[in-house]
């Protein structure tokens, strides 16, 4: 190998910017200074671009400066210039592994300000819950699969992504897109479920259940997986509450909080489901909580299909619904209404309100300030990933660099939701 040029040794390149001559013999082999290691923003394990500047003492992390914002796409500023319906595509791109839930959250916020909460057709509510739970399953499949892969378990990753693929294809049948659905509307959903959907989805759930058995047998008692996940990234219950953690992370730490059960919305009071709770709050508990939630989501889906009534999937309130095409082209009233809906947007009376639901990562909420026009005055997204990412520094402390991967994976920081 040719000698390194520029008067710098390989050690210096690797160990930092210290002049080699100044170090003692033992120092030159093991420098005692803290070293700064940069992870990201372009990094395979930094899901959705986050930069972590780790200050390490050997392999042990002393401080981690987590720097989000590389995926900031000005959701709030853009929403102020778009009509309420035009914001739905923006919400798709927030938590992009469970987009239907974001859509539902935004619709709920606008409906709350218009006084339409609880006045939607029953079928619309059921469809929303069905697609939300499907999205929740895809979120958990992605999180668990990607985390497993980062720890070296490639097989479960592919198995779980195969399941996710089945769900994406079904969601594509429903909305027309695999990920960027924009399916939900203020007042309901844009179109009904396709024919034969129930049978397809239920068959898919059976297949997913059997794949979950395989994956759990590969991971749950796998020594490598458990060693790398158990006892890592412990979060106490008090810390979880103080730092605003919600969702699977909080439940793994023992915080018994699930928006679907505690502040029920939509038709969740009509379905039965359990809320899994962890004890230690470490990565392994988070993994188990997610797996169990996935199974509960499947349980909810089966109940929904047993209970779903027939009927319209969109409210008939003229303030929110587009008229039928035939009427639009043939009567001036419907033409005007269609026009005003598209150009001016759904009129929301002036006021402010916060509506929240259980996203894949916990309490996802939208704080909307309306000013009586068809465009929001302010649209703030309370993203659980952002809050959870703020706990990362606390979780990394006194762990090794290699532990960053499972911790970060199990936080499930979705870049789009974190950075908005």
């Amino acid at each position, binding site marked *: 190998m040719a000698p390194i040029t*520029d008067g710098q040794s390989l050690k210096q390149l690797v160990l930092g910017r210290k002049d080699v001559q100044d170090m003692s013999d033992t120092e030159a082999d093991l420098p005692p200074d803290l070293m700064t290691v940069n992870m990201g923003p372009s990094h395979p394990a930094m899901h959705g671009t986050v930069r972590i500047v780790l200050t390490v003492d050997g392999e042990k992390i002393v401080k981690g400066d987590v720097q989000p914002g590389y995926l900031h796409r000005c959701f*709030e500023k*853009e929403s102020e210039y778009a009509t309420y319906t035009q914001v739905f595509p923006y919400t798709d791109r927030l938590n992009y592994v469970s987009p239907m839930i974001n859509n539902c959250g935004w619709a709920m916020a606008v409906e709350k300000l218009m006084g339409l909460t609880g006045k939607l057709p029953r079928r619309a509510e059921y469809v929303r819950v069905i697609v939300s739970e499907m999205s929740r399953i895809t979120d958990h499949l992605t999180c668990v699969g990607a985390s497993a892969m980062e720890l070296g378990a490639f097989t479960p990753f592919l198995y779980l992504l195969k399941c996710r693929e089945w769900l994406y294809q079904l969601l594509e049948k429903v909305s027309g897109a695999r990920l960027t659905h924009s399916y939900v509307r203020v007042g309901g959903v844009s179109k009904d479920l396709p024919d034969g959907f129930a049978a397809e989805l239920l068959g898919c759930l059976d297949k997913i259940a059997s794949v979950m058995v395989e994956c759990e047998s590969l991971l749950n008692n796998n020594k490598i997986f458990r060693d790398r996940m158990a006892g890592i990234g412990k979060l106490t219950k008090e810390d979880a509450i103080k730092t605003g953690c919600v969702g699977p992370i909080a439940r793994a730490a023992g915080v018994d909080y699930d928006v679907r059960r505690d502040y029920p919305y939509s038709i969740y009071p009509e379905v039965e489901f359990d809320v899994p709770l962890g004890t230690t709050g470490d990565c392994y508990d988070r993994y188990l909580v997610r797996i169990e939630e996935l199974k509960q989501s499947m349980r909810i889906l089966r109940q929904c299909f047993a209970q779903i009534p027939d009927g319209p999937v969109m409210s008939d309130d003229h303030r929110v619904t587009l008229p039928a095409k035939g009427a639009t082209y043939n009567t001036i009233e419907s033409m005007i209404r269609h026009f005003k809906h598209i150009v001016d947007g759904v009129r929301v009376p002036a006021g402010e309100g916060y509506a*929240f639901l259980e996203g894949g990562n916990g*309490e996802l909420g939208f*704080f909307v300030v309306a*000013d009586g026009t068809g465009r929001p005055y302010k649209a703030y997204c309370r993203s659980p990933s952002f809050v959870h990412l703020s706990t990362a520094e606390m979780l990394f402390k006194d762990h090794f660099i290699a532990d960053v991967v499972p911790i970060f994976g199990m936080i499930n920081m979705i870049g789009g939701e974190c950075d908005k």
Partner: protein
Amino acid sequence: MSQKVLDALTAALPGAVVRTGSAHGDEIAWIKREELVPAATWLRDDPKMLFDAPVFCTCIDWLDWKPVGRPVAEYWNETKPRFTVAYQLRSTTHKHRLRLEIELPENDARLPSLADLWPAFNWQERETFDMYGIRFDGHPDLRRIYLYEEFVGYPLRKDYPKEKRQPLVRRDDLPINPIKGPHAGEHK
């Protein structure tokens, strides 16, 4: 729904509460800036309140506030405070929710930080500072979070045009000439 919370707050700290209100099922209490920390501490620690879970912190800029269907007297003008910082709190034990709103004038947009009481507000206050320029006194690390340090302006303010461009910034923590490795110059 949590009208009891508002009543208890007004009874316990009458000097802190400017007014209370309820809108669409949300309870809101407008708090004076100077009394914010005592009020927040009481809300967190009082056994009947126990607001231990922070939900969000954000800011509303009223500069363009001309609500349709509301009296003209409610439009914003220079005599009214320009910013309102909103903190949403939740109680895990009692399950009630509350929003605290603090009104700030444009030329003095600062208020005490609640990051010590609820660590979640650390990053959220940084976000509010980043986007609106609200300064939080006592915040351990008030710097931009989403945007880069050289960004000029506060983008979510209503007078920041959406189309405004910022100049490109060179990163000065990277070397101008990359360190040449052992095989430098071999590829042409």
